[in-house]
């Protein structure tokens, strides 16, 4: 498998009046060509900060890239100048956001919003750019693309707007699509349609996707591989099968237990992980999850766990995996597999 994106030891902080917010603390992950990597985790775990760093979209200051490499096709783009990044954004790496209602410019026709990116990156006449934009609109399933070019965002529903966003993102055949909770703001039907569209485009265009979400149902439906984030760190990563059927980290267990039964027949109540995420102004010195972990040991509060290799690419950062740790029984996890779900 060829790595198209390889993030190593990414560390990002925000300098605020209250002090340094350590939003991302040594995150490493990679994305293979044409696959979908899901990054999951609770609110505030640093998912958005991580992928916005990849795009170079964080305002600096207050954000500060303290450490780390972001290798795109083997080149460290963390070192790129703003000008170099502009050439990359929308052309090689694209991004879509959570709220399609606010992500489009309300005073610009959507046709122009799509053409803009095309004309920035490719030497096309405006007529050719227009043709490409129309083609993109029909590719993402917008009816009457030609007349819809002339309409404004407020004339579209949320789902349609997210389709437009996808059209903008993929207009220049980006090889990487970063999607930050692209369906969170949509209702369930829309959500399913958008996810399906993303899967289709991934097949036809070969785009690799980083999908951020805190919905394990979405993950089951989409992901080839999964990275679980907590407190600014990746606590477990592996293939979708590994994470769903053989999770090692207590936080992952908690996440899976909080996943609603997809057949709707579950007798068990949804459990939530008690407690709240750590304050990133003063991250705990040990494992970030220790305070909420039902299996917490003395060492967990003293020292951050290293990443243990389980098999191949399945890794988890938990002291329970240390050979000298007591063996604990994993709680019963209900997985109900969606059609086309965990592969």
């Amino acid at each position, binding site marked *: 498998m060829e790595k198209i994106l390889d993030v190593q030891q990414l560390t990002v902080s925000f300098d605020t009046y209250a002090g340094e917010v350590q939003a991302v603390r040594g995150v490493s992950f990679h994305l293979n060509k044409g696959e979908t990597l899901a990054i999951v985790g609770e609110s505030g775990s640093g998912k958005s900060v991580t992928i916005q760093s990849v795009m170079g979209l964080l305002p600096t200051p207050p954000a500060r890239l303290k450490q780390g490499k972001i290798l795109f096709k083997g080149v460290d783009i963390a070192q790129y100048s703003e000008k170099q990044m502009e050439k990359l954004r*929308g052309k090689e790496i694209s991004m879509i956001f959570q709220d399609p209602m606010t992500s489009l410019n309300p005073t610009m026709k959507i046709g122009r919003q799509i053409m803009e990116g095309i004309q920035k990156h490719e030497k096309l006449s405006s007529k050719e750019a227009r043709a490409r934009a129309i083609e993109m609109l029909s590719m993402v399933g917008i009816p009457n693309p030609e007349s819809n070019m002339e309409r404004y965002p407020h004339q579209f529903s949320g789902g349609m707007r997210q389709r437009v966003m996808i059209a903008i993102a993929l207009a220049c055949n980006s090889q990487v699509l970063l999607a930050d909770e692209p369906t969170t703001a949509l209702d369930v039907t829309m959500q399913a349609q958008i996810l399906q569209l993303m899967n289709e485009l991934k097949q036809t265009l070969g785009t690799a996707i980083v999908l951020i979400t805190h919905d394990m149902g979405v993950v089951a439906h989409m992901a080839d591989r999964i990275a679980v984030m907590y407190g600014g760190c990746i606590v477990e990563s592996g293939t979708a099968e590994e994470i769903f059927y053989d999770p090692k980290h207590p936080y992952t267990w908690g996440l899976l237990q909080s996943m609603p039964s997809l057949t709707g027949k579950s007798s068990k109540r949804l459990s939530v992980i008690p407690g709240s995420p750590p304050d990133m102004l003063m991250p705990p010195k040990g494992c970030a999850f220790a305070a909420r972990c039902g299996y917490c040991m003395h060492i967990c509060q003293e020292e951050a766990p290293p990443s243990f290799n389980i098999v191949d690419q399945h890794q988890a950062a938990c002291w329970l995996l240390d050979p000298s740790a007591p063996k604990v029984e994993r709680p019963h996890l209900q997985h109900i597999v969606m059609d086309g779900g965990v592969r």
Partner: protein
Amino acid sequence: MLKYILKRLIISLITIWLLATVSFFLLRSLPGNPFQTEVLLSAEVQQRMISYYGLDRPLYEQYFTYLGNLVQGDLGYSLKYVNRSVNSIIAESFPVSAELGLRALAFALPIGLALGVVAARRRGKAADYMSVLVAVIGISVPSFIMGTLLQYGFSVKLGWFPVAQWKGWEYTVLPSIAMGLGLLATLTRLMRASMLEVTTQDYIKTARAKGLNERQIVWSHQLRNAMLPIVTVLGPLVANVLMGTFVVEQIFAIPGLGMHFVQSVQSLDYTMALGLTVFFGAFLVAANFIVDLVYGVIDPRIRVAD
């Protein structure tokens, strides 16, 4: 669209009618009569004047006469300027005030907006502090001090411009600046805030994610959206400026409308005060109407449907 314009027109007429009515009765409830102030007039002469102008007739009768004339666009005769109609006084002074106002606008609008944009883009840098300084000075220094300072510096000391009066291009420079500075400051402040507000919007992030550069983002995504809140306040702002201000016109001895506003109320020149109020009201209503139309052009979300 036609229906909308018609509806707005009717609402405007009702507004003006209400304004005229309220002002009419309020003015009449002020103590005294217009001729009392003239020391020279005997009580008998005063009485003759009062009946000459019909001020002794029942108030409601006068009101309906006034309305009847108003409908025909006749604002009546001034009680103070003998034999001069309010219409002719407005026709003579308004162009002067409007010209001064337009010049002030032409000076304040582009500079104010540009300073606001620069301040927002260079937030926290020297250019930002400079703009904020200009804004604070422009807003807090009253125009009579600004006017006098300009007069002293550029006319008396440097001799670049004439001290006062209104006789040609060079006469217009200082009063336009004196009058425009407050406006410029207000616009700078508004535009800066508005630009900063827009900077944090999601669609700006989308624009950056497309690979657009700063310049492209500012020009095609930020400015237009940042202008929206400005346009809303622009209507009354422009109307005010075009109507002239008493202070600046006094300092530079400019024969504009501003002076008449103050004098007519002081001397109880009923028709004059009322005429000016109605004229200003109509102007304001028209300005707001135009602003709403312009707003629709800039913001497709509120564009009026047929």
